[in-house]
């Protein structure tokens, strides 16, 4: 791309300046959180912020010992977010393909209805879902959380995947059908491999949404299914907030999602563009 060369020097300095400010604005809080998690109690809340200090692992050690052991929380989070995202991806991919190929009238209405199910305010859907789940014995269980996360992941997955499928040239499918493939075979062997980036994008976004969820986990979770964001909330106690431990837990919650996000960033960009350009 040759346009860069034509950017005048002054403008280039301006651009670099904006980028630098943007990066500072973005990264300082995260770096500060990570840094604070290695500080001793006194250093974390020092009136004059300390950049240099004696690092300690005590905050992390305390998170994994005693009454507060974080181990099970991490496991619950992984299970609930992981299974829910996989399910959302499978059901969403199949339904998304159906949506993108169907010729029925009112298709747009169906598409809009699907995404509109994600718009309901959390605080009010929680009570009816709670009653529904209690009847099914799903409260305080991983399957319960999985289903709860599906309420927001499934519409998102259907919507996004349908957009990706619309991008696949219809001619490819037609020729597969002409060659004697069944509809399913055409979908499985021809279309699906072409939407790999879409699959990855959808999965990761679902994973991020459910991993980070607080409102649903608070209501549907319990001693056997407590997740990480709830554990963070538990550190807000009546006598004060243990910021050392809290920044440590923040780092633990954030790190895996960042790594997952960064690992698939390449697909994320193409994925979202495709999804974006085709709208619903």
């Amino acid at each position, binding site marked *: 791309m040759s346009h860069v060369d034509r950017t005048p020097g002054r403008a280039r300095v301006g651009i670099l300046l904006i980028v630098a400010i943007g990066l500072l604005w973005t990264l300082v809080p995260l770096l500060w959180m990570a840094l604070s998690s290695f500080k001793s109690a006194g250093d974390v809340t020092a009136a004059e912020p300390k950049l240099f200090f004696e690092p300690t692992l005590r905050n992390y050690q305390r998170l994994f010992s005693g009454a507060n052991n974080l181990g099970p929380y991490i496991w619950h989070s992984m299970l609930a977010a992981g299974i829910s995202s996989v399910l959302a991806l499978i059901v969403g991919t199949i339904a998304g393909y159906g949506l993108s190929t169907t010729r029925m009238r009112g298709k747009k209405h169906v598409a809009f209805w699907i995404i509109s199910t994600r718009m309901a305010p959390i605080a009010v859907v929680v009570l009816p879902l709670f009653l529904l789940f209690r009847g099914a014995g799903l409260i305080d269980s991983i399957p319960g959380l999985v289903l709860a996360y599906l309420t927001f992941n499934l519409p998102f997955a259907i919507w996004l995947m349908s957009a990706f499928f619309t991008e696949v040239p219809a001619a490819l499918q037609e020729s597969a059908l002409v060659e004697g493939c069944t509809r399913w075979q055409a979908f499985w062997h021809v279309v699906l491999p072409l939407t790999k980036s879409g699959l990855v994008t959808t999965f990761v976004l679902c994973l991020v949404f459910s991993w*980070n969820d607080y409102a649903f986990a608070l209501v549907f979770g319990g001693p056997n299914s407590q997740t990480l964001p709830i554990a963070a909330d538990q550190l807000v106690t009546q006598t004060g907030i243990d910021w050392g431990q809290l920044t440590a837990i923040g780092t633990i919650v954030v790190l895996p999602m960042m790594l997952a996000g960064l690992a698939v960033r390449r697909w994320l960009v193409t994925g*979202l563009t495709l999804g974006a350009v085709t709208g*619903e």
Partner: protein
Amino acid sequence: MTTTLETPPRTDPPRPTRRRPRLGFSAGMMAPGIVLLAILSIVPLLTIIAMSFSRVRLLGGVGFDGAGLTYWVRLFTDIDLAMQWVRTIVFFALTVGLEMLLGLIFALCLWKLMRGRNAILSLFLLPMFVAPVIVGLLGRFLTDSTFGLYSWLLGLIGYQGDILGGQYSAFAAVVAMDIWEWTPLITLIALAGLTSVPASVREAAAIDGANPWQTLRHVILPSISGVLLVALLIRSMDAIRYFDIIAVTTNGGPADATKVVPIRLYETAFRFFDLGYAAAIGLVMLAVTIAIARAFVGVLERKGLTR
């Protein structure tokens, strides 16, 4: 609610001969997802509608006693709620507006930047992956008047007030936290749109003697407006219903300065257990969100960006 759409039924293109089986196949593919979604959404929706006309008892099994229009009458005479809607609209406009603006500016800068674009983008995307609860708690940590890094920095340049203690500063702070978390999403989408603008379009503009500003205004922006609209749609859906950041930081204070409708809704439902009224507030929120989303989708459709 989707029946209000006034687009004429679409005229389908000529169909291949295998029409019947295709319809069946597609519908069959859609069915599991739709059924699951219907169970997870229609049952709750009907319950919420019923709730908004009832007094809800919790103890000894949930029970609904008819309350007629009590809650709806209260809804339309509630001055506090009206104020909270105004605040919500300001919050919505500020966060989504600034996120769009900053996200676009940053995307343009990155687009002009050849070297290191990917590395910088990766770093810039990080806040998107942070749980909103953590964003709120982190915000509280950074703005604490005793040991907060940002309070300290502001103190160096002469600002002595307590950030979450002042009405305007607290509002600005929660807006800033939301912007911090979600601007990257806009940047990501906008940049993706920008990279797909054909080089020939830009060349043509340059040959016509357009200056960079004119090129941006008349060539580049129009060609990514569809993408930007979708970004707007994605953000709007969540901007109205998310409340984690405010709940963790100010919880509506000081002097109600940050009490937006979702906070009021949460409080009505789960602090006061005034569930009938909460249902009424929630239904209005849902209607507003759908109206906004409809409007954006409508624009998209007029632009011919959906298929």
